[in-house]
């Protein structure tokens, strides 16, 4: 027992050592930046010291209606999420059901996934106007392909044995679909929705910034145009924080949906 305790402690230390090293390096990096900026080696009119950015974070949260902006951006993302789920899953199911359609357009969907849709944002502005719908529709078009492709992948990957179980119970076509195929495909479909939502968030914040309209993206543009450097950096940090939390939440849901195999 007495020999096991130090060994366990060493193992625990080895476990947290990499994470602690990583964190220490990040902290050290910001400390060095602070020192370089204060000493004048890096101009504070180009890079504000990290301490000022931390100060500005509180100001940006209090004065720039960040809660309203946050809910606006997240609202746009979730609207897009609902739309890609409805249209993406329906499209995937239709393409899985009608093989001819799948053979004809699956490569087109894959090409759309590789296409830089967000660059067409001036086009969306002409069609929808400079409003939230432009932002939502760009998110929708950019985020739709992974949902369609993953729905097809999930449905085609249903294990043969499950389909045979359905057959042996004499399930009708729709029962087979809703009781066997869809539940089996759900984790893969959610992977598509997760990817879609990440694309949606990236595109939505990006377009908000570019067209200077709406939530968090606009805030960065606004602060940059006012030449409020600590505020700009603080807002960028806030947006990164939001997207990391968003990303982690989606991962948690995905892990929860995946069957423990």
């Amino acid at each position: 027992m007495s020999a096991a305790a130090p060994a366990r402690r060493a193992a625990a230390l080895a476990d947290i050592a990499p994470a602690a090293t990583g964190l220490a390096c990040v902290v050290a990096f910001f400390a060095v930046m602070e020192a370089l900026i204060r000493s004048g080696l890096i101009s504070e009119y180009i890079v504000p010291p990290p301490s000022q950015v931390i100060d500005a974070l509180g100001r940006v949260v209090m004065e720039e209606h960040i809660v309203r902006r946050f809910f606006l951006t997240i609202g746009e993302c979730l609207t897009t999420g609902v739309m890609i789920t409805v249209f993406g899953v329906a499209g995937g199911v239709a393409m899985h059901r009608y093989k001819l359609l799948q053979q004809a357009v699956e490569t087109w969907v894959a090409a759309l996934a590789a296409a830089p849709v967000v660059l067409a944002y001036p086009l969306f502005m002409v069609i929808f106007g400079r409003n939230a719908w432009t932002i939502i529709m760009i998110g929708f078009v950019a985020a739709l392909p992974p949902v369609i492709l993953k729905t097809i992948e999930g449905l085609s990957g249903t294990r043969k044995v499950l389909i045979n179980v359905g057959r042996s119970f004499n399930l009708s076509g729709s029962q087979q679909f809703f009781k066997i195929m869809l539940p089996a495909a759900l984790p893969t479909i959610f992977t598509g929705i997760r990817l879609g939502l990440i694309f949606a968030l990236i595109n939505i914040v990006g377009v908000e910034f570019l067209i200077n309209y709406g939530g968090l993206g606009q805030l960065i543009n606004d602060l940059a145009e006012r030449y409020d450097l600590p505020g700009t950096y603080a807002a960028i940090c806030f947006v990164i924080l939001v997207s990391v939390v968003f990303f982690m939440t989606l991962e948690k849901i995905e892990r929860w949906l995946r069957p423990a195999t």
Partner: protein
Amino acid sequence: MAATGHLTKAPTRSGVSAVTLLRVGLVVGALAIWEGLARSGWLYRDVVPSLLAIAKALVALLTSGEYYFHLGVTVGEIAVALAIGGGCGVVVGLILGGNRFLARAFEIYLYYLGPTPKIIFFPVMIMWFGVGSGSKIALGALSCFFPVALSVAAGMREIDRVLIRVGRSFRADTWQMIAKIYLPAMRHPIINGVRLGLGIALIGTLLAETKLSNKGIGFLIINAYSTFDMPRMYANLIVLFVIAIGANALVGRFGGLDTIRR
């Protein structure tokens, strides 16, 4: 894909496959709806310009020398961005992939910073690198660094241990190991990383050009928008999408990626 190819080739009585017929039908249908909308007058004039107007703009665009100047600027910026961001990505990926401790210390930051929107760094890049090409290249490089690094690190870890043991048993030195074992074994992850990086560098660079610049394809697009020359904007977008999808396919084909599915 194999199944699709197989079925696509099954001809109908007329000698044209049903898939081709459906594809042609869909394209013709979409074009007909477009032209119908253009002529209907339901939408504001020029929001949906007629196909003829777009074709004319396309010809005018491709025959003007000025377009190739802007194309050259953008291609140059993307190439430099990919070289810097992708090069750093490959080096960081190899280091993280080869060292478990460093991977556990730093990879989580790359993993979570990767999918954040990069365009929001543009004001910072303007401050650091100026309003010229520098800030566009920096944004493109920043955008493509993350996917390349993560893809290379993951690829490095997936190398078959047997190959590494074979190299060691032949007493290969470090350079021989890299040249004969690691790099050939990692061709797919590196090419795939570069392909992802290329797409993202292209988006980063062009978005930056649309926000603030006086040359490049992004500038042409936003310029056509601000002068409300819709046929020219459509023509620019069509050429850009063809180039982007073509470049993506070319890198995939070049790296033999068509043998593996995404």
